[in-house]
């Protein structure tokens, strides 16, 4: 970049130089054409010189600035890096300006050429100078405009310079900031290094700390272990001590043990003996009971035997009386079964006979109906026959009549024939004859028909007669049968029937009985059903395993067991108490205590009552004591006040009297009660001082009250005098 920068600067420089050289060139050109237009050229030249001078100045300055810039760039490469863009922009602007400048320069050149041409024209056309002048003026104006433009360009250049300056300042400030930042950066780097170093140190420290901590924890564990060991050791020591103590006790204990073992062995033997004896007694008792039972059973057996013998005899009697082969109930049952079987067979017979009778009756009834039908038929047939007969008779009569008529007709015909023998009347006669013959034939036909009918009727009647005869035969046979049946039944079956009837009645009765029984059984079944019975084939009864009843029963069982246990314990206790009663009270008490402790029995009511009584009596005692104390106190104070002596009991039957007016607390009199009830004065420090009074009142007068009074008076007088 730097190089490029340099190159751009160099290029600008070159361009500038070239520009300068160009500008010099037209100068020389203008020198050449000085002869043509001095004034104008002078003016132009002056203008050009001015511009060139300015440009040179600016160029130099620019160069200087460039140098400075380069220096600055050299010194502040980093700052330039940031400000590069601005710089390049400005350079670009500058280029633009330079380009424009070049353009302008080109234009100026062109104008110069035109001027030259114009001068040439002037030289050629002096006349047209005015016009040309005018042109020149216009051109001048243009030039002025150009100048103005140039000025403005210069102004822009100056402004750009200002900008450049400002930017330079900015760059400087930025550079300073960069340097400050670099410094800061360095500081921070240093700090960072410092921090790094510190961190390393700290990490080292941490590592060391961890190491120490681990060692510390190890140490702590060790310490704990040691402490535990210590505790163990202490415990061991304590155990050893106790063991030692126990060991010291061991010989004593062994002795005791031996002693106790001996006792135990003795007691065991005695117990075994006792239990053996008890068992024996128990066994004997049981034997006795058994014997008694067997005896009772024996008696019962004998009684039963007698009864059985009686029964047997009864059975035998039965055999004798009935004459049957009955000796045992089995025989009887067999007989009964046989009878029943016979009955059944008879019943079957009865049934068959009954059915037969019924069937016969049925057939009889059928036959009767048939008979009646047949009779009615025969009657009908007879009627028919009669009618047929009547018909036949009528027909015969008619035949007779017809034959008579025929005969009559024939006679008439014959008479006619005789009368009309000639053929006068022959056609009429023949006609009549024919007619008569036709009539005859008709009647004959009719007759024949009638005869056929008759024969038919006769045949019918014959068949009916035959039928009738058959029916009659049948009837007869039936009657015979009936009669025979009647005979047989009357002879043979009547008895059977009666028997069967009876049996039927019996069976009916039995059936009714059975029905009743069935009803009763059904009722019973219903009742059973009501009571909760069931058919185990069809039904099963289920209930939950854990139902309230079983639970309650279990609870009850447990309670009972607990109570039984308690009872046995109490029984043992009672027995031990009873046994212990003989041994002595102390043992009894101790055993009671131990047992009560062991069993932790709840105190019975009696015990509770006794305790209450005890408490009450204790309370009473307490109260009495209190009352006594009070009374005694009162009594003592009264005695003290009245007699002037405080009486204390020091030991058994020794009384110490202290007077109210005693000078010292130790001034006391000591009396002893003798075995015979007499009081004797004992010697004390105080009594030694009272020799006179002792001699006078005790030895001489033998009166203790007088002595005491004297002492009181003496002491009183002493106190009052002092």
């Amino acid at each position, binding site marked *: 970049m730097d190089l490029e920068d340099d190159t751009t600067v160099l290029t600008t420089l070159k361009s500038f130089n070239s520009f300068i050289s160009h500008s010099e060139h037209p100068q020389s050109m203008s020198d050449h054409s000085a002869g043509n237009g001095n004034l104008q050229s002078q003016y132009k030249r002056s203008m050009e010189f001015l511009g060139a001078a300015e440009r040179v100045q600016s160029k130099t300055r620019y160069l200087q600035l460039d140098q400075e810039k380069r220096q600055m760039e050299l010194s502040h490469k980093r700052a330039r890096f940031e400000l590069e863009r601005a710089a390049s922009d400005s350079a670009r602007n500058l280029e633009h300006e330079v380009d424009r400048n070049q353009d302008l320069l080109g234009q100026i050149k062109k104008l110069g050429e035109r001027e030259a041409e114009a001068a040439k024209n002037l030289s050629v056309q002096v006349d047209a100078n005015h016009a040309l002048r005018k042109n020149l003026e216009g051109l001048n104006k243009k030039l002025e405009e150009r100048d103005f433009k140039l000025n403005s360009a210069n102004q822009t250049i100056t402004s750009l310079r200002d900008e450049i300056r400002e930017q330079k300042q900015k760059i400087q400030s930025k550079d300073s900031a960069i340097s400050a930042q670099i410094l800061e950066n360095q500081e921070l780097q240093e700090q960072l290094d410092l921090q790094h170093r510190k961190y390393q140190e700290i990490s080292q420290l941490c590592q060391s700390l961890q190491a120490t901590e681990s060692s510390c924890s190890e140490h702590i564990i060790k310490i704990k272990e040691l402490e535990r060991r210590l505790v163990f050791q202490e415990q061991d020591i304590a155990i050893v001590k106790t063991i030692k103590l126990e060991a010291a006790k061991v010989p004593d204990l062994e002795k005791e043990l031996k002693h106790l073992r001996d006792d135990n062995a003795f007691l065991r033997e005695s117990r075994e003996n006792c239990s053996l004896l008890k068992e024996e007694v128990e066994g004997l008792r049981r034997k006795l009971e058994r014997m008694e039972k067997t005896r009772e059973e024996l008696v019962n057996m004998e009684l039963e035997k007698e009864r059985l013998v009686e029964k047997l005899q009864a059975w035998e009697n039965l055999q004798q009386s009935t004459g049957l082969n009955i000796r045992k109930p089995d025989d009887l049952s067999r007989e009964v079964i046989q009878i029943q079987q016979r009955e059944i067979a008879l019943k079957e017979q009865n049934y068959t006979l009954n059915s037969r009778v019924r069937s016969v009756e049925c057939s009889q009834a059928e036959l009767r109906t048939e008979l009646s039908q047949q009779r009615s038929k025969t009657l009908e047939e007879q009627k028919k026959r009669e009618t047929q007969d009547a018909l036949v008779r009528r027909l015969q009569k008619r035949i007779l009549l017809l034959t008579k008529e025929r005969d009559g007709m024939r006679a008439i015909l014959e008479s006619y024939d005789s009368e009309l023998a000639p053929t006068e009347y022959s056609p009429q006669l023949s006609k009549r004859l024919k007619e008569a013959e036709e009539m005859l034939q008709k009647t004959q036909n009719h007759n024949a028909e009638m005869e056929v009918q008759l024969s038919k009727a006769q045949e019918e009647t014959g068949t009916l007669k035959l039928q009738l005869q058959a029916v009659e035969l049948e009837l007869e046979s039936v009657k015979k049968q009936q009669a025979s049946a009647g005979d047989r039944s009357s002879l043979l079956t009547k008895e059977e029937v009666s028997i069967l009837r009876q049996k039927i009645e019996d069976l009916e009765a039995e059936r009714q009985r059975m029905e009743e029984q069935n009803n009763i059984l059904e009722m019973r079944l219903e*009742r059973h059903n*009501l*009571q*909760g*019975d*069931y058919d185990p*084939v*069809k*039904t*099963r*009864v*289920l*209930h*939950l*395993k*854990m*139902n*309230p*009843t*079983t*639970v*309650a*029963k279990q609870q*009850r069982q447990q309670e009972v067991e607990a109570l039984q246990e308690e009872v046995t314990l109490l029984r043992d206790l009672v027995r031990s108490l009873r046994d212990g009663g003989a041994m002595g009270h102390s043992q009894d008490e101790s055993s009671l205590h131990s047992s009560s402790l062991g069993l932790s029995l709840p105190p019975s009511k009696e015990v509770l009552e006794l305790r209450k009584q005890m408490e009450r009596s204790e309370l009473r005692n307490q109260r009495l004591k209190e009352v006594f104390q009070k009374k005694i106190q009162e009594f003592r104070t009264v005695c003290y006040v009245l007699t002037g002596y405080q009486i204390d009991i020091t030991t058994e039957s020794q009384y110490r009297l202290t007077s109210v007016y005693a000078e010292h607390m130790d001034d006391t009199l000591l009396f002893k009660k003798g075995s015979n009830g007499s009081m004797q004065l004992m010697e004390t420090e105080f009594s030694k001082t009272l020799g006179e009074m002792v001699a006078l009142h005790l030895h001489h007068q033998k009166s203790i009250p007088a002595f005491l009074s004297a002492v009181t008076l003496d002491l009183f007088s002493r106190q009052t005098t002092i």
Partner: protein
Amino acid sequence: MTSTLKGITLKGSTELVAEFFSFGINSILYQRGIYPPEMFTRVTHYDMSLLLTTDSKLKNYLTNVVSQLKEWLFECTVQKLVLVITCLETNEVLERWQFDIECDKSAKESSAPREKSIKTIQDEIRSVIRQITATVTFLPLLETPCAFDLLVYTDKDLVVPEKWEESGPQIISQSEEVRLRSFTTSIHKVNSMVAYKRADSV
């Protein structure tokens, strides 16, 4: 209750009957003093005041039995439910409350609801429970501590569920029987009766 107001299905009938048993058993336990009265609380059902137990153990037991019974009622395999009251001291059966159940097994196949309103069934049930309450007047007093058990008479081909076992019928040796009212849902018919130990035989 699954059934509508007009008809009744097998399921609805099962529910009704099971409910009746639950209340009936509670009533008997209260009336006969098998459990102390403070273990019961008043509930209004069937338009009447009924007593239900508050003891959790008893409740648990009853729900167990009734739920199983419901299953059997639904399968129409139950014949009887019997509440047996046993004397704890002598292990003697003192009372048997028997509920004979007649199942219309055709209801299992056809699911068509029967024409009988719940209201009328509940009226019938109410009268049965009233009668149970009224029986206290003639039943002998239970003087000893007693416990109860529930027996279920079922068809033989039934598989015995876990926790259940076969039991004896627990028949009273000398008993008087009194038939009580019955009710029917038109699928299940329940005949109730009570048998108790004759007083002079004790």
